[in-house]
């Protein structure tokens, strides 16, 4: 850290650097450094910032926007939901608090603020139920509409409660009665103390949330909602949680605005407010919790500077708009993100050369064949003990039984009346020529797709029509043909997310618990990493992995929840000959004592791995048997070589 830089800015930098590596919650145990530095920064600021041209009012406004932005950052930066409607909750919380304090003459400012927070949270919940029905651009559009609706309602039909275009004047200053003295927070300086205190509280809470299992899962949802759901998490529930948290922060900040100004303005509800929040957060850097604060510093300072010092008048917003566009184009992760990237780049240089794995030797197909035969003769690796194995012994009979499974897409029949049964501990392969319907079949087994007719029974219970999430929780997981990883996180975090679902169920609001304190998690994660041979790469970001390593992680995600039944969809897809051999070895060691179903086209490798093979053709089961039987089966040969006889 450069100590010659202005101290306040310096402190903020340190906060960001330590708060999140790559925007996730996996910090080292010196977690409280962030909180301490934040406190230090907040205490030092009023002594330093005025010399840089910050007026007391500006500093107070920065804190309010910063707090407003913490919740928004959890929603946008961490969960990936870009909402343009936060002004609705900002205004709601502010108006409720102001109304209580002015019209109803409710005596206590702080509890009025909390009532405003609760009101905003409830409204957030109801709005979230509607808005979260869709994702992506629909979500963005709906939030814009929400912002406008709230503004209009506040301005017109409810104007007797909200003061319409006049707002609610006369919001009292908070009072703190300490017995021997009473403090009135009614000057800029005292208000600063009040606001800084609540900002600090809000930040501490946010840091806890972000370091909790919920926080980690939110990051997973941002990166890959499909996989987050497939490893057993109730994605919709968590999104709604993030939405409510953002609304609550917004509501409290809105109340603080009223208190700070002594007056609750109607423009809190304006769409401009939402827009300003979005821009500030993007400028500061989303996903850092401090980004909105930094963005507010830039925005409010520049708007002052541009208007008063440069006398640009109304053009200040134009300049800020241009700054915003330029940042979005060229500094994608905002100012804080840019600083972190720079830091990472410098730190990376030492690490990179040490840790890069040696590339696997390039093998020609002939060499591959020879190596494969040699490897196949090696003794099987010692079976790794399974951890937290689900109580397989409670149920006897086939672990999976599908009867009459059919899938139709309009007029096309992809799977037709398939009967399929796998015994516990069996290793089964599924093969078939193109168009056989293998992927569709797999998708039905994992409940990614509902069958048109038929039944699937897993460990004695009917899972037909259930969701992927539920089925994963019951112990059936899949590793995907195309890697579905949480690409913005480290290897360890990826496994943690998968393991969390098993240990906590599909939805739990343990917002204040540190993810490091979940009993059994570290064990489960280390065990899984060892199983897929990624223990020494655990702290690397996914982007830094070689393709073969990513494939192993892909399998690791499916393994992390100790499934009773593991489905592998083309685990060898796109692998070089050398990577193929490594993966076969790995799958053999994983396969010991575990029930697996594997689809792949690499016959040589597949037949090494499985005891029994099901052959599909044109949506039906053609034949089942041992690899040797299948190899010698004439019908199978014909299916592969072409079914067209010259007429």
């Amino acid at each position, binding site marked *: 850290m450069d100590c010659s830089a202005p101290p306040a800015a310096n402190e903020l930098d340190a906060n960001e650097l330590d708060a999140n590596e790559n925007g996730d919650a996996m910090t080292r145990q010196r977690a409280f450094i962030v909180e301490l530095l934040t406190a230090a920064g907040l205490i030092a600021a009023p002594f330093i910032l005025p010399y840089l041209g910050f007026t007391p009012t500006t500093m107070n406004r920065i804190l309010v926007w910063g707090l407003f932005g913490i919740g928004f950052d959890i929603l946008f930066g961490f969960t990936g939901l870009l909402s343009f409607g936060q002004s609705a909750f900002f205004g709601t919380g502010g108006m409720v608090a102001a109304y209580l304090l002015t019209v109803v003459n409710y005596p206590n400012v702080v509890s009025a603020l909390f009532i405003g927070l609760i009101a905003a949270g409830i409204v957030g919940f109801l709005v979230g139920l509607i808005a979260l029905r869709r994702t992506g651009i629909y979500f963005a559009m709906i939030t814009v509409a929400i912002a406008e609706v709230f503004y209009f309602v506040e301005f017109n039909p409810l104007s007797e409660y909200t003061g319409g275009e006049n707002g609610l004047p006369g919001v009292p200053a908070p009072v703190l009665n300490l017995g021997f003295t009473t403090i009135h927070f009614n000057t800029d300086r005292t208000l600063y103390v009040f606001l800084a205190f609540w900002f600090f509280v809000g930040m501490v809470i946010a840091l806890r949330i972000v370091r909790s299992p919920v926080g980690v899962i939110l990051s997973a949802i941002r990166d890959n909602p499909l996989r987050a759901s497939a490893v057993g998490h109730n994605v919709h529930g968590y999104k709604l949680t993030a939405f409510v948290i953002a609304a609550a922060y917004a509501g409290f900040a809105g109340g603080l605005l009223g208190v700070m100004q002594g007056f609750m303005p109607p423009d809190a509800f304006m769409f401009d407010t939402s827009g300003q929040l979005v821009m500030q957060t993007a400028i500061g850097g989303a996903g850092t919790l401090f980004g909105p604060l930094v963005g507010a510093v830039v925005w409010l300072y520049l708007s002052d500077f541009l208007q008063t010092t440069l006398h640009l008048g109304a053009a200040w917003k134009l300049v800020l708009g241009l700054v915003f566009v330029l940042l979005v184009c060229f500094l994608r992760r905002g100012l804080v993100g840019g600083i972190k990237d720079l830091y990472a780049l410098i730190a990376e240089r030492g690490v990179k050369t040490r840790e890069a794995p040696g590339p696997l030797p390039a093998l020609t197909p002939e060499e591959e064949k020879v190596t494969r035969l040699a490897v196949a003769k090696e003794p099987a690796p010692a079976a790794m003990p399974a951890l937290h194995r689900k109580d397989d012994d409670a149920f006897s009979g086939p672990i999976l039984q599908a009867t009459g499974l059919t899938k139709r897409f309009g007029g096309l029949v992809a799977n037709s009346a398939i009967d399929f049964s796998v015994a516990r501990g069996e290793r089964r392969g599924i093969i078939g020529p193109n168009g056989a319907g293998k992927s569709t079949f797999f998708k039905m087994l994992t409940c990614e797709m509902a069958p048109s007719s038929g039944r699937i029974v897993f460990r004695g219970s009917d899972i037909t029509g259930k969701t992927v999430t539920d089925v994963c929780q019951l112990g059936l997981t899949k590793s995907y043909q195309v890697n579905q990883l949480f690409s913005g996180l480290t290897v360890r975090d990826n496994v943690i997310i998968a393991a969390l679902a098993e240990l906590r169920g599909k939805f739990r609001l343990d917002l204040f618990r540190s993810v490091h304190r979940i009993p059994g998690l570290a064990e489960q994660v280390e065990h899984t990493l060892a199983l897929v041979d990624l223990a020494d790469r655990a702290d690397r970001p996914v982007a830094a992995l070689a393709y073969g390593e990513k494939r192993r992680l892909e399998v690791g995600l499916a393994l992390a929840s100790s499934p009773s039944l593991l489905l592998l969809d083309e685990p060898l897809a796109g692998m070089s000959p050398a990577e193929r051999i490594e993966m076969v070895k790995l799958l053999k060691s994983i396969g010991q004592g575990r029930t697996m179903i594997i689809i792949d086209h690499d016959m040589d490798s597949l037949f090494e791995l499985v005891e029994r093979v099901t052959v599909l053709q044109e949506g039906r089961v053609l034949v089942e048997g041992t690899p040797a039987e299948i190899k010698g089966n004439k019908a199978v040969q014909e299916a592969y070589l*072409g079914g*067209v006889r010259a007429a």
Partner: protein
Amino acid sequence: MSLLEVEGLNSYYEDSHILFDVALNVERHEVVALLGRNGAGKSTTLKSLMGVVTPRTGSIRFDGQEIAGQKSHAIARAGMQLVHEDRRIFGSLNVEDNIILAGLTAPNRWPLERVYAMFPRLKERRGSRGTDLSGGEQQMLAIARALVREPKLLLLDEPFEGLAPVIVQNLLATCRKLADEGQTILVVEQNVSAAMMLADRAYIINNGHIIETHTAQALRDQPEVLHRHLGV
């Protein structure tokens, strides 16, 4: 000079290495088949030729011009056409519009009547929307779209997949006719017998590597070659 000369082609799907130093040639007026199991890289090869997938390294010389790395529309204008594996008919347009659209930027486009002469069934269905066509009709339309542009090289990606045997026979006859008229074709197929009825020569690809190449006659004489690489 061959019409198509491919050397050292390496293609990736994101960071998954699919094609390893693929090399092949296609001479004018010949029909070449690319045979291999699923996942061997057959489709990726055709897509790399057409620019739908951008190869990472390698050279593709088409009619004397280096086209590796160019955008699809430029490659199409150079005279190559790909009939995609999933046909990719414009469902919201009718049959005739699909054909007209295909020919818009082709210097020597086929007149509609010539297309309909080759595919009378399409003429019957000329006003039907793409989504209302059967699988066989869609395949015909996909091929017709490619032919309208009078491509120097026609790439067919699994043209017979998922079609009833009668339709396959029909399509096979049409392709045979095209080949006889001198159309250069590179066909990827898992249905080996159908492919061998068309092809003069075949490459065998496995796990992204070109393994062998044989003439059609040689493969007929030694069926165990196919069994070894394509069978189970």
